[in-house]
């Protein structure tokens, strides 16, 4: 994965992130700044997220991604610290994104976290890292395999996919860390109960995701 800080001149913080060789998203954050009276909240700050695709005007996919990001970021930012202010995120896609996959959602979340760290002006509860996990049907044997990246040849074996976001905070030493899964959209890519997801499956997928997210966090540090 690739990550870098941009230093755009008119915003408080900015960063690029991508899974792979090229950055997929560039995020900028301004905050806490002045808020419009209509969206002002008396006891906490307002978070505004704009997701802009590379081509075309922002549509429903962008809106869906923006809603997800807002939810995740509300858990990361300490909202009560700056009431009646606005924290504004703009997520700009750097690669064409015809549909927003789970991997791209994970990249967006990581990118927003990086730009928050770059800004330093917004108080945060912790660092949120996200990865997307896929479950493949086993080649031989009974246990399905969980992988972080989907390669071309594994697509026919795809059973379930999802993105997990973990909040990391309070690391006493480099070996122990506290992390909790705060958001996921683990879902099966088949309809019907044959290859459905259940609780054990979710727990297993979450563990795989946790270690992958830890790698992302180490890289961020």
């Amino acid at each position: 994965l690739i990550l870098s800080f941009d230093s755009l001149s008119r915003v408080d913080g900015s960063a690029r992130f991508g899974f792979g060789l090229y950055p997929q998203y560039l995020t900028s954050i301004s905050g806490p700044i002045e808020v419009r009276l209509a969206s002002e909240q008396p006891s906490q700050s307002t978070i505004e997220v704009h997701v802009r695709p590379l081509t075309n005007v922002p549509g429903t996919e962008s809106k869906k991604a923006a809603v997800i990001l807002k939810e995740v970021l509300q858990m990361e930012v300490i909202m009560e610290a700056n009431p009646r202010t606005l924290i504004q995120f703009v997520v700009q896609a750097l690669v064409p994104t015809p549909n927003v996959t789970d991997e791209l959602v994970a990249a967006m979340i990581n990118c927003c976290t990086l730009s928050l760290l770059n800004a330093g002006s917004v108080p945060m509860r912790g660092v949120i890292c996200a990865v997307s996990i896929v479950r493949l049907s086993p080649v031989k044997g009974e246990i399905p395999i969980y992988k972080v990246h989907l390669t071309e040849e594994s697509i026919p074996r795809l059973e379930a996919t999802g993105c997990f976001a973990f909040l990391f905070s309070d690391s006493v030493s480099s070996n122990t860390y506290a992390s909790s899964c705060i958001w996921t959209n683990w879902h099966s890519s088949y309809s019907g109960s044959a290859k459905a997801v259940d609780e054990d499956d979710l727990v297993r997928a979450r563990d795989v995701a946790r270690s992958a997210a830890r790698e992302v966090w180490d890289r961020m540090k």
Partner: protein
Amino acid sequence: MRPPSPSIPEKEFLFSALKQGLRLDGREFFETRPVTLTFGPELGWVECFLGQTRVLAQVDAKMIKPPPERPFEGVISIHSEISPMASSEFELGRPSEEEVTITRMLDKVIRRSDVVDKESLCILAGQRVWHLRLNVHCLSDSGNLLDCACLAGIVALKHFRRPDVEVIGEEVTVHHPTSRAPIPLSLHHNLYCFTFAFFSDTSIHPVLDPNHLEQRLNGGLISIALNAHRELCVVQKSGGVPLEPADVLRIVNVAVQKAKDLDVIVESRLREDWEGRKVEVR
């Protein structure tokens, strides 16, 4: 919240410095900020840095049925909406005056001045033409977004390669970039835009490539788009303090010289990037 800049001390400092012939960032009056062009992995993706001002431009092409009144020409559309990333003063959905100027100027520079040969975009007359879509994203506004956006747009069009198309009778075959090398767009000329800011105090000479503070405090802006062969295409002065004809002629001469220099830079960067890519032509 603090009132928006520029503050009165900033204003007075800028004017007194300019009267003494000094610009706050140390440049000469007719010196632009350094231009950096970064190309992405895809063809037609370029990020243009003009000092701290940054613009990203990307070109996309797809085939459509042409409108009936122009069956022999391709279609070019430009999308340039400024997001709050450029500056928190920009709001989505409510174009500011600067944004309208940029949209109109991009339209004049890229579409109406016939930079791209539209007839070469025709595949099958009346049925299939190329629709080029230029997306311009302003990432950071540190003054003179207009020049940066125009430059990014032109360089993206020069960098872009469209898939090769073969027409046999009525049948159209589009070749994938891996089977046949994509071909560049045919451009008539390269246009470069230069913006000069002048101030309400007429003893101060106009400055080229205003930075953020100079643009906020200007008494008027004049933009000139021209190519490297001394041909003027667009001269735009919207409002502002009246200028003497001698000043305008001097500005045009400066712009002509700068266009030649910029053309050399752009061509050398494009050549460098092209050599770095592995393209085999069979």
